[in-house]
């Protein structure tokens, strides 16, 4: 059963670029490069591990309409 599809949003002002979300993402759908947090929807499997692991709550999972 596929997980309900989400998009991961970052609140940039809250994010410390600590990399915890990068570490727990099974699909490398989040990377930090050049001091910038980046998300790749096509890689994301909507597990929301990143949302759980963030020490400050800078991430939100926004439900996506199924195509």
């Amino acid at each position: 059963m596929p997980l309900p599809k989400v998009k991961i949003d970052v609140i940039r002002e809250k994010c410390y670029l600590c990399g915890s979300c990068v570490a727990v993402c099974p699909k490398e759908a989040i990377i930090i490069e050049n001091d910038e947090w980046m998300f790749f929807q096509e890689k994301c499997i909507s597990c929301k591990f990143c949302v759980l692991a963030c020490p400050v709550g800078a991430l939100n999972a926004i439900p996506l309409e199924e195509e």
Partner: protein
Amino acid sequence: MRYDVVVVGAGIAGPILARNLAKQGFDVLMIDKKAEIGSPKRCAEGLGIGNFKKYDIPLDKRFINREIYGAAIYSPNGHKLELRYNRVSGVILERKIFDKMLAYYAGKAGAEVMAKTEATGLIRSDGKIKGIKARHEGEPLEIHADIIVAADGVESRVARWAGINSFLPPHELDSAYEYEMILEGFEFDPDMIHLYFGNEVAPRGYVWIFPKDDDRANVGIGINGDNPNTAKYYLEKWLKENNIKGSKILEVNVGGVPVGGFLKELTKENVVVVGDAARQVNPMHGGGMAEAMEAATIASKWISRALEEGDLSLLENYTTEWWANDGERLMKVLEIRKISEKLSDDELDAAVQALSGADAEKLAAGDYRQVFKTLIKHPKILLKPKMLKLLREAL
């Protein structure tokens, strides 16, 4: 650019490894994406005193904030277990200076060091890994090297690029949040580190006070990474419950600590993984600096042999040697952590009470069998069948 070894990451593992290899005359380049090596810090800055001699690091007062004589452990209902030595047992570092000085030692030993240089991928050709692609101020660089070292910390991407599965599920991560702050109206002995346990205080982890002055400290928390609440939430809650005003905050430090087990394969082809990137952290207390130094020491030994003999398969000995020593030790610690995280607040209270009567020197030396033996005999524990069962399993 061509080197014998390129090291990605100038935290703890990277500079120790780069220094060891440069000393032996190898051409080493160490890069870090940080513009200022060491900054920001993501650490409580506690390090056991024995590590300086063991890893040949000078006790330079420029990175030692203060000396520590032991630890005080507090149970949920306030029982205190004090493990005090009559000699210095550890130090609180200034990690921003420490990391930079470790990189300085690597540079002095002959390694090249490039800050503000971020690895962005591997160079592959003929089915082989030939080096690292990097960027410095937006300029792309191609760094060719015989051996690539992933010392890039918890967020490590280098290992994954090489095909090593270093994905860390959230329950294997501790989510951490820390203030370096002035603690007003809150008494603590600045010669000790202070650890507060409790399922409401810090699920699976603890709140720490690592003193940097009589009234200044790193005050932080680590909790299980799959907790629906954030580490910040629990730290704020603890501060409030202890009437500590958060009105003098000098730094906010945020990070993740891998505490759920270690990479099985520490190398792949010519890529060698060390430190947080290899998940080499003590899963009980989340300290990883000493572990990173140990891994870097073993890895540098086998990298040097592999280069000397022109035989990359010798790198696998790093995995074997690490697992036979630190790996085995830390797996035991992980087993103990898995037991202790199941304890209720009541059981934690009983345990701390029981241990306050035990041989503190042995406890402080980390003699876990002694801990268990003491616990098993204690009347309060005897009344708790679940705990007794857990302890028997551990012994």
